[in-house]
């Protein structure tokens, strides 16, 4: 069973299919519906036996690199170009096939936005490298 990460982004990726304002500017009932849907996805995956993990990341990003022998690490806290990717969180799933991962990603993307209409959010689908199988 391959594992996939369904990544959600704060920014980056293809141009938004449906641009929307930040969630704190939505109608309260639309906010509720959106949050309820996220919980529903976790429940659904747990129920189908496909859930591995779900996490959300804060938007703060720091790039760090080795500073060289005896030197402090070099870091940059941004701000980074608005075009750069910023991951917001993920669902990790364990599914039968690539097709199933795509199907679930599309379902995640159908999450309700303003007016209860789907967000059409781009979901970044990434396969997790698996363990070496038993030898033949």
């Amino acid at each position, binding site marked *: 069973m391959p594992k996939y990460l369904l990544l959600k982004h704060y920014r980056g990726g293809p141009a938004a299919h449906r641009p929307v304002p930040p*969630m*704190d500017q939505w*109608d*309260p009932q639309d*906010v*509720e519906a959106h*949050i309820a849907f996220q919980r529903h996805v976790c429940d659904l995956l747990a129920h189908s036996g496909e859930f591995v993990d779900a996490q959300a990341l*804060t938007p*703060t990003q720091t790039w760090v690199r080795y500073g060289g022998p005896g030197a402090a690490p070099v870091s940059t806290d941004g701000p980074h170009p608005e075009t750069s990717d910023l991951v917001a969180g993920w669902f990790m799933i364990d599914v039968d096939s690539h097709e199933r991962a795509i199907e679930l990603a599309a379902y995640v993307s159908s999450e309700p936005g303003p007016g209860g209409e789907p967000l059409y959010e781009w979901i970044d689908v990434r396969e997790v490298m698996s363990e070496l199988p038993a030898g033949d």
Partner: protein
Amino acid sequence: MNPTEPPAPSWDGDALRALVPRVLAGLVRRGEDFDAAEDALQEALLEAIRVWPGHPPRDARAWLTAVATRRLIDARRSAAARARREVTDQVQPVPGATEDGDDTLLLLFCCCHPELAPASQMALALRAVGGLTTREIANAFYVPEATMAQRISRAKRTLRGCRLDRPGDLAVVLRVLYLIYSTGHHERVDLAGEAIRLTRQLTLATDEPEAHGLLALMLLNHARSAARLDADGRIVTLDRQDRSRWDTRQIAEGVRVLQSALAAQRPGRYQIEAAIAALHDDAASAPETDWPQILAWYDDLVALTDDPRRQDPAAMLGRAVAVGHVLGASAGLREAERLREVIGERHRWHAVRGYLYELGGQGPAAAAAYAEAARRAGTVAERDHLIRQAARIRATG
């Protein structure tokens, strides 16, 4: 029903865990190494869970001591065979006292050794004094069991050779217990409940008012825990909680413990925070909250530190809310503004500003502050709550 589950035990699991610090302290007092004794007892506990349902012991404490001792002897034999054990490594026993309460104190000083990082102090206290298994502790902190096992064994290696004949720093113990409490209430392991249990044990061993103050603080806050989240897991702020869901028995006990602590006339951070919690608990409805008295306690809390640069920002922020209620929202906002340099990057600072702006009827500013707080929140529940606050205010504003 899960067929792999063992039959219901004929013995009381809480009683078993209550024996852990007693048995362990007994072994340590006898001169056993804390590290080895703790391992041996952990094995004895697992053995107990396996054997007792079929063969309940006559004297549980003696049984655990005997099995742990046997493990220690086995371990020593194999160690001797490797001829590597150093006798000088042994933890020195504390002479004298043999009361159960002192056992807890001795072990807590040991687990909360200043050389250990807070994460290790918490894990060790939960295992050695709380009697939790490594798996339960790993679950509570959302790390793999192997990671937690390694963290515990590294912590115990650090403790090797530490003499335990001096009392440790009670302030560190209290901080660790409070940290366990604040780490929270998970579905799988109720850490807040564990912290209360440990602190209750500690108060049997010391008259120090701050230890009793901490127990009172935990009880008075925990009393509201059923009302803190709604059925869908949404945060419900204090002013909107269903107060009929507060645990009046815990409140009564908290108030009793607090009064006995305050009677010693040696105030400290935990007693004062407990007094503030008690005033919130005492209000039949949010508008009936005695804000002037809460502000007076906050003044005392802030006055504990002479140096304004070393003031606790969380206390100052709490005070700003109280100022907002007593002297008006703009006065509260001025207080909060003074903290911008110190905690202006933290979500809580923005959330308090949102609260005070709303209190002052400034909807748009409140919504903007809540939205800013949401962007900085460190938990999903808080982030969602703050987004809801912003959306609610924008919709009604």
